């Protein structure tokens, strides 16, 4: 592309910079707003610092308010998203491998039903799931959110494709010749080879659970069980009655957004990998 003039480069870069402002301004705003007292939030210009620097105070407030509940919400989110995604990835790997490498009666039926499950929107199952779980006494417990998080039909679909393409029959045969059982072969020989697909499945599920709002909203009544999204929303809905929740909510937003934003930048390439797999095969 040596024929392009520098003028063209400047124009395109300028345009992309303006677009970048659109995507970054809300994040910039929350960084600035988190340094302000609740008075300054309303009386000083939104895109510049206030009269006093309150960032430390605000962050301390966020972590100590209502008996450290924010910390608890963060921890809950990590349990729901991390624990759920870990189990979901393992189960999808085992199931996907079984469907890819064994020939057994009912294999296509099982795969067909699970594939149908990929297409069922999660919002459609949230309400009946609540009714079912309330009969089982699972609503308003960690399990109410965790159990649905442990299933990833899309993950199983991806793992099946990956296992079919990469797990060699000769590897399995040599394991069997050595006298290893089928489960042992899966755990010690197959699982490691599937790692690239497992990372993608794990990340998709992690983000999916972390972002899910409807299911915990329906399942949980006790705010001690809330994930961070639900907790911040609870604080947000308090601000109209009591303005002291403004700095709390803004500080809480900052603390939750920064790690996610950093993680997103570093994990970008995994998404592209996963997306291409899906796009090429699908």
């Amino acid at each position, binding site marked *: 592309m040596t024929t*392009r003039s520098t003028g063209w480069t400047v124009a395109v*870069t300028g345009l992309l910079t303006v677009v970048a402002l659109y995507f*970054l301004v809300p994040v910039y705003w929350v960084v600035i707003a988190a340094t302000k007292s609740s008075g300054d939030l309303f009386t000083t210009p939104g895109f510049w610092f206030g009269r006093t620097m309150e960032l430390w105070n605000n962050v301390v407030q966020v972590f100590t308010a209502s008996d450290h509940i924010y910390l608890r919400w963060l921890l809950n989110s990590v349990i729901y998203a991390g624990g759920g995604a870990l189990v979901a990835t393992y189960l999808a790997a085992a199931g996907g491998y079984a469907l890819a490498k064994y020939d057994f*009666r009912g294999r296509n039926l099982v795969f067909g039903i699970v594939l149908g499950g990929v297409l069922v*929107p999660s919002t*459609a199952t949230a309400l009946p799931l609540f*009714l079912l779980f309330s009969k089982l006494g699972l609503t308003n417990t960690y399990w109410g959110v965790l159990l649905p998080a442990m299933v990833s039909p899309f993950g199983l679909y991806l793992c099946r494709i990956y296992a079919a393409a990469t797990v060699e029959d000769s590897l399995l045969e040599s394991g069997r010749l050595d006298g290893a059982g089928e489960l042992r072969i899966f755990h010690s020989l197959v699982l490691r080879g599937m790692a690239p697909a497992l990372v993608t499945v794990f990340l998709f599920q992690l983000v999916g659970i972390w972002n899910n709002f*409807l299911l915990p909203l329906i399942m949980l009544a006790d705010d001690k069980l809330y994930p961070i999204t639900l907790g911040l*929303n609870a604080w947000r809905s308090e601000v109209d009655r009591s303005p002291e929740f403004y700095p709390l909510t803004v500080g809480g937003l900052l603390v939750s*957004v920064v790690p996610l934003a950093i993680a997103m930048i570093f994990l970008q390439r995994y998404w592209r990998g996963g997306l291409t797999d899906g796009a090429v095969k699908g």
Partner: protein
Amino acid sequence: MTATETVAAERASAPAPVRPRRRRKFLGAPWILLAPFLALFVLTVLAPVILAVAQSFTRINRAGMFGEKGVTSSFAGFDNFTQALTNSNFIQAIGRVLLFGVVQVPVMTVFATVLALLLESASARWPAFFRAAYFLPYGIPGVIATILWSFLYVPGLSPLVDAGKLVGLDIDFLGPNTVLWSIANIVTWTYTGYNMLIVIAQLKSIPSDIYEAARMDGASPLRIATSIQLPLIRPALVLSLVFSIIGTLQLFVEPQVLHTVSPAIVSEYTPNLSAYTNAFAYNDYGIASAEAVIIAVAAFVLSFGFLAWTNRKGRS
């Protein structure tokens, strides 16, 4: 039987020796590997789907004013569906998300495609930085993004409203005519970078000798984009459009969160919000389930219809 005879016998049945043997030998193994997944799948996906369909055909009769004399249920036929589809709030909600989808989905897709083409054209500096900046909002959960934007919409707090006043504009982000587009802005902000990455992934799979041949023939960058890149990234665009259509029908989080700051967002603002309200505010699970089934079926029909339409267009 001698050793050679055994080998010969095995050779004779050579075409399908592995399959039947494997089936016999490892009968249990695949099911043991599948069992935990299937158990949870049945509990959290299959059973709820069946329950939702069953509920949508069920009428709940409460004896006495509050059901204190016992609750019975009976088969309702299509009553719940007729009731849902004649509920003007639900119909308005469907119209609203259709309008939203017709405007927001194409705008976002074009936006994402243009950004991907510009970033891949190698005519901008720092492409890695821009790609990361555009993708960053995707990592922020919808609820958090909506709370964040709600602060940028609320008069008194919003620097955008202040900036508008400076130039004599009175911007109302939360009014009855504007709030739908304020929601569209949040969705666009969150998902453009994601769709851009899908397109970039597809662009990267185009072999570089195609570009070289085109340049040899004297094709301009614009010509390369319209004649080579756009046709070749069509599958990625179709995929991202289908995801966007399904996502639009499911719209829930943004209006639910903005509801506290915008009176224009009524309790049945989107189809999903309507199902939620019917279930938890009115305790009418029959109607709510019927609405959930209608939304899911609509998502199926729209995405398959769209796929069929693009396939036919691709062939002709």
